[in-house]
């Protein structure tokens, strides 16, 4: 069964790049640009992994994460957080992110991280 990744990212170009990478890797990717839509998607179509941008318009990434962790259905959902700012790591871990990456990242880095979080064996590269 195809594993499902939910990508929450407001920058359209970054979203497109990540979607291309993960789709090429055989994953199903759904995308939301802001918090309310993202949470709805989490509960309606539970993903196997959530990639969450930190700086979002409206609800911030941390707020979305807190909401996800507060709900029993999504409490254990693995979350990979992306940020463009240096000092967000601690806050992200406190809020319950499983993994944290700073932009810009290499494609290989994010693919390896996603696979490891989905319990897939690391491929070469």
């Amino acid at each position, binding site marked *: 069964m195809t594993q499902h990744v939910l990508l929450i990212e407001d920058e359209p170009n970054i979203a497109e790049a990540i979607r291309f990478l993960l789709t090429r890797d055989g994953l199903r990717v759904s995308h939301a640009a802001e918090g309310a839509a993202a949470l709805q998607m989490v509960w309606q179509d539970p993903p196997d992994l959530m990639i969450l941008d930190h700086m979002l318009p409206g609800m911030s990434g941390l707020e979305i994460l807190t909401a996800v962790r507060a709900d029993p259905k999504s409490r254990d959902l693995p979350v990979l957080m992306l940020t463009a700012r240096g000092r967000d790591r601690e806050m992200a871990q406190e809020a319950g992110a499983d993994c944290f990456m700073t932009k*810009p990242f290499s494609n*290989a880095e994010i693919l390896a991280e996603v696979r490891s979080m989905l319990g897939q064996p690391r491929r070469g590269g």
Partner: protein
Amino acid sequence: MPFNLLVLSCLLYVAFLFAVAFLVERRAARGRLGWLRSPLVYTLSLSIYCTAWTFYGAVGYAARSGLEFLTIYFGPTLVFIGWWWLLRKLVRIGRQYHVTSIADLISSRYGKSNLLGVIVTLIAVIAATPYIALQLQSVVLSFGVFASAAPDGSRPLDPGQTAVWVAVGLAFFTILFGTRNLDAREQHHGIVTAIAVEAVVKLVALLAVGSFVVWGIAGGVAEVIAKIDAADLSAWQVEPGRWTGLIFLSAAAVITLPRMFQVMVVENEDEGHLARASWAFPLYLLAMSLFIVPIAVVGLERMPAGSNPDMFVLTLPLAEGQGALAMLVFLGGFSSATSMVIVESIALATMISNHVMIPLWLRLRPGAAAADDLRSVVLMARRLAIAIVLALGYGYYHVSGGSAALAAIGLVAFLGVAQVLPAMLGGIFWRGATRTGALLGLLTGLVVWAYTSFLPSFGPGAALSEAVFTQGLFGLSWLRPQALFGTQTMDPITHALFWSMALNVLAFCLGSLFTFPGPVERLQGAAFVNVFEGSVGPQRWARGQVDPEALLGMAQRILGEETALSFFQDAARSQGKEGFLPDPTPTFLDQLETRLSGSVGAATAHAMISQLVGRATVTVEDLMAVASESAQLLEYSTQLEAREAELTRTAGALREANEKLTQLSLQKDAFLSQISHELRTPMTSIRAFSEILTDGDLPPEAVMRYGRIIHDEAKRLTRLLDNLLDLSVLENGSVQLNLGLASLQGMIDTALTAARQTRPDRDFLVVRDLPSEAIYLKTDADRLTQVFINLISNARKYCDAARPELRIVVRQRAGRVTVDFIDNGKGIPKDSQSLIFEKFARLTDANRAGGAGLGLAICREIMTSLGGAVAYLPGQKGAAFRVTVPLRLERQAA
């Protein structure tokens, strides 16, 4: 008798008085007064109570109103016999505290308030002026009697001219002997002796004419008594109210009349003299009144109907051909008038110069107090004041025409000065009397007296209109001057007396009860009220009777007024006492000592308290001096406190600056963090897609698309770096402006074209008014256009209307041009309007347009450097920005 002889004897008499005064002054200067310092002279000088009003007027009074004239003698008699202790207290206070006048007494008692001194002076001058006029009138009348009796009727006498000469002569005499030098106690031995001589002359004259009338005309005592019995005026028509009022009035006047105060208190040489005067003066008054009724009765019988009874003493001997006796009487009357005028004008001049002229002079010439010539200034002021007083008296005489009956004016004047009585008696017997109380009482008394007595004395239609008399002030019938509050049954003088004194006393008491005396006032009050205990004060402490008032006075000097008062009030409250003075219990003394030791040190505080309690023989004044020194220490410590406060302020300013720096540092961190985000975001896209492209194996359209994205994001990065550079240059103020004339319309055209790159997909309707844009501006056209581009781009980015529209409105006024950019979108929420000009203050998803949130911050900096401004215009339908720019920007120096 030839008129010239009369004038000559007048002049001789005056010359004689000059000589007496001169000789006495010389002896006084050598310190050899001898018998001149006797109680006899003192008693005789008191006789200035009997002015021309009593000398001539008493007979007239008796002829008109029977025995009522006696009330004018009863009052002083009662005071001198019954209220001897009051006079003694006044004299003691006057001697002990160098009181120079009644105004000085009141002003010293109530905390040396010059305002009170001025008011008392005012009352005295107002009341004395008609009284002085009365004396002038009596002299003129008596001259007139002689002139008309002269057989040849030689010179028609001009009364006005006579009055002028009399006034000038009196002013001359008074100035000569009243202001020869300055005495700390304002004593004038020469004048007092001259007045004593005049007192003898008027008594001898009156007794002589009385004897002549009884034995020379009527034919003996028995006949006179028979005539009196037959006459109406002997009937004792005693109206209790009026008599009580008049006796009270004359009793009050003998204490409060400025001239009486002068001779009784100021000129007093020896307190013992008062004891003699207390029986001798009533005796003098008795002698003066002895023949009044016989003269009146015989005069009414002998003289033709319609002749002025005020002049009977003079006209009777003249009619009987007794020229020499008439001359003596004339000199007696002349003495009465002149002695009164001289002493009154000296007393008034002292008040006017001390309370009005000198304070004014010192205020106008600050620093003059230290000058040596103050003495001569005071003397000049004194002389000027005497001239003013006499001029006022003459003026009043001239204006009033000298018509009113003599007695009426005298009573009005008595009532006027009696207004000082409550403040005076309250001041020396009641320690609770306060300055405010005295002020209220005096003013109330002055107003009521003026309204009910003084102004009506001019007659209806003169000072007060007829309507006021009949219908009251403002038509209020209860405000009729002679029937206040509907009291119609009293005669005018009793009425005025009752209301003025009642309201005066009421205001005085209420004012005193509801205000606190200041420290000086309380000290003076205690000193005046306890004047007889002053010398034994220290011993009293030894008996353990601590005066809480003295404690309070001392505590106030050390702790400050408010603090000490509240400390005492608290203590009194804890003792369950009313008011602000606690009982000096040992507990309270301990508390006070602890409190004082905080300011002056424990040893001093203990010493002060124990001295006040009476273990050492120090006077209260000594303690006050110590307390004053402490006050200086306190002042020094206040200065230290001020410096400490300044240090605290400096520390506060430093803390503030530090906070500001911290704030700035935080802002810098936030800014860097924001920059990092803005740089990393396009970098992420570029890196991801360039790696994807490197991976290869892509359809050509994807390669095209991803290449495009990389290009766009690279451009975004460049733009961001440009903006940052721009902003830093602008913020540093190191921007080079390229000034020149440019068409506003051209700039807007350029901006609209350039902004079309932003979201070229949207079709914007731009509304302009081209004629209004036909303005040439002297500015940096590129920079201004940059601002326009930014604002138009923002509209294109953020206006969310279905049919977006942008209005550009140009106005020109007062050398400035405003350009408004108004779109038809939702606008900017109110709470965000103040944020939008901050760096990175993007409000919504900016990625659609690729802005970095620096645009408006840059606009603001540009407009500042162009001498203009950009601001959000609230209250429009959509988002609206106003750019204000000067029509002609001049290059600034540096």
